[in-house]
């Protein structure tokens, strides 16, 4: 049923429809409305047989999820920004133990300076954590990705982060179709843990693994992540079959047929970019768009197929690696190595800086003729930063 609803509320309802058994949460903007919604649903009985635990930190939130998941319960939490960083030790532990926890990351910048607005610095910092990372383009996809995430996680026995842009999506009111519990149950079978803590069949989980076996354990995790490429796509296909919506999956192309220039991006900026691509095509430009849903696992083959006829790729990123440049760009370059395609990076929207159609259009017009640097910071106040650089260097 279509409802005009806030993104966070829509996600809370979607999570409830997935019937998690343990939800734990610590407040941090812009994630809080999700768990507020869930606490209400647990307390008023809408979501029965679910324990809602108010914990004392994000580190505890992920730890409670670990204990719950290892005991065979479907576990969920949500966080953002500093909260994600505070739980990092447990984030790696969850994937290392192969626990299918689903977590929403309401993407937000990392301080300092403290900044509560949107970019992708938080989840990108967890690139190598062993979690799957799926990025939502809009609130409908955020809803659908969470439902798909539980199935992917439990099929692969791997944890999944669903990343949705903080404020831009979490606080936006859009028309969203939220499947009912019955509809979700038909898509998502009950959690059947691969192993669980059970006094009748005692297992030791979390043993110390030494040099003689650690490499093998990590290699197997690597292979499982690669195998999950198939699962992510298959679950999206199954979802489309049942719900009639094409959401999730590895990546989606938009007007890429014959395009010489392809823009690649993640998250809500894809919507804006679609408008820009439409405008530029109207003006006769040869440009298309690839929206990357699955950042981990990274869909090398699918990306190759999507861009094989292009001359250049522009990777738009809402995070970067200080001192080098784009983070997603590194993977894109790996994917297209050996192909005759140039790759450029544009960093945009850091700390909630609005990314306007006008700025994107101006940048892309230059990008299409490669009249740009390898690395561009969109709408950077160059006058200001040059002054600062001169001052700083003079003091050294």
């Amino acid at each position, binding site marked *: 049923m279509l409802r005009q609803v806030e993104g966070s509320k829509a996600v809370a309802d979607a999570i409830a429809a997935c019937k998690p058994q*343990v939800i734990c949460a610590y407040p941090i903007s812009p994630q809080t409305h999700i768990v507020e919604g869930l606490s209400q649903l647990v307390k008023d009985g809408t979501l029965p047989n679910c324990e809602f635990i108010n914990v004392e930190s994000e580190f*505890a939130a992920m*730890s409670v999820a670990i204990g*719950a998941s290892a005991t065979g319960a479907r576990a969920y939490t949500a966080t953002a920004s500093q909260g994600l960083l505070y739980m990092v030790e*447990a984030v790696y532990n969850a994937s290392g*133990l192969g626990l299918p926890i689903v977590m929403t990351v309401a993407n937000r910048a990392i301080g300092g300076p403290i900044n509560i607005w949107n970019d992708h610095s938080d989840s990108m910092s967890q690139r190598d954590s062993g979690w799957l990372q799926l990025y939502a383009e809009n609130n409908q996809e955020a809803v659908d990705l969470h439902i798909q995430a539980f199935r992917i996680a439990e099929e692969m026995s791997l944890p999944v982060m669903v990343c949705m842009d903080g404020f831009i999506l979490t606080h936006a009111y859009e028309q969203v179709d939220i499947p009912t519990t019955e509809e979700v149950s038909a898509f998502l079978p009950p959690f059947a843990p691969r192993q669980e803590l059970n006094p009748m069949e005692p297992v030791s989980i*979390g043993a*110390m693994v*030494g040099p003689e076996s650690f490499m093998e354990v990590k290699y197997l*995790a690597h292979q499982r992540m690669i195998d999950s490429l198939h699962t992510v796509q298959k679950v999206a296909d199954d979802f489309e079959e049942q719900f009639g919506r094409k959401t999730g999956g590895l990546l989606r192309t938009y007007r890429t047929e014959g395009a010489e220039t392809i823009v690649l991006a993640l998250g809500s900026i894809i919507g804006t970019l679609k408008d820009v691509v439409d405008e530029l095509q109207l003006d006769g430009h040869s440009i298309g768009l690839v929206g990357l849903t699955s950042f981990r696992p990274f869909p090398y083959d699918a990306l190759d197929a999507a861009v094989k006829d292009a001359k250049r790729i522009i990777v738009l990123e809402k995070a970067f690696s200080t001192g080098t440049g784009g983070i997603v760009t590194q993977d894109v370059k790996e994917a297209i190595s050996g192909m005759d395609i140039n790759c450029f990076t544009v960093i945009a929207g850091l700390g909630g800086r609005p990314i306007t159609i006008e700025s994107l259009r101006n940048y892309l017009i230059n990008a299409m003729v490669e009249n740009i640097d390898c690395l561009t910071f969109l709408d950077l106040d160059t006058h200001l930063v040059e002054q600062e650089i001169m001052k700083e260097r003079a003091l050294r």
Partner: protein
Amino acid sequence: MSATQIKFYQVGSFAVGNRLLRDDERSVQSDPDRTNALTSGHRACQGCGEALGARYALDAAMRATGDQLIAVNATGCLEVFSTPYPESSWRVAWLHSLFGNAPAVATGVAAALRAKGDHTTRVVAQGGDGATVDIGLGPLSGMFERNDDVLYICYDNEAYMNTGVQRSGATPPAARTATTQAVGAHPGNVFGQGKYLPKIAMAHDIPYVATATIADLRDLEAKVERAMTMRGARYLHVLVPCPLGWGSASCDTIKIARLATQSGLFPVFEAINGEVVASSKIRKLVPVEEYLKLQTRYSHLFSPQRNDEVIDHLQRMANKNIERYELMGE
């Protein structure tokens, strides 16, 4: 003890205990018919107080619950010496996650059991003093405050032994550790610092707080059993001497634990809902010196010359415990 066959593997990581080894390469530790929650053959040091305490505590908990028990373990000696892959010494459903999160993981286990409608299986979490009073204090306090249905057992050997005997928040004054060396004007650990976790636990008004030592294993067992008759957050603080870290003879572990109680330095008591209800009386009061002298971590108090000022200070601490917890008398 049940004859349930034990399996060894790590969830999802494919670090599957003995599964990667041929039958004839597997150790005695993998014999599924062995007994005890923590079986013999683990890699603890000779005379390890923690191994002894953990075995008696968990055995008692298993008996009290009819084996319907899940144990959560913090990182530390107990975890390292009991589960070097591909072996495990645990004959109980056992989960180790991290150093500082055992209370929160146990909360998650208990929540999962409730959500699944399992009101029979009980949860014990355990860790050393570093995991408990320092790095895991936040999650432990959270677990207390929510009154989660977990018995948390701290095996206190008064320093970070697994990493090489560094000072923890539970290290007593004057004790030498790798980070409080017996040099300078004030050798060993400083006075006036450290935290006494049983009182912090009592401040949460949780149903049950108790202390025990491995010098009185029947008392330890009785306290575990009593704790398992209750619901909610319960805390048991067990003094477990460490021959390696304390510089004591392996054969003196129990003797030293007894001297800790008989000197008054380690009060043994029980508290219900935040109030002390009983304490174990000292049978034969001894000066703290008798306790200190058996441990090289205090040797700087006796040579090259005797440091009466510090020894007296420690004696006053013991005297204060004797008064506060009413350790003398019937």
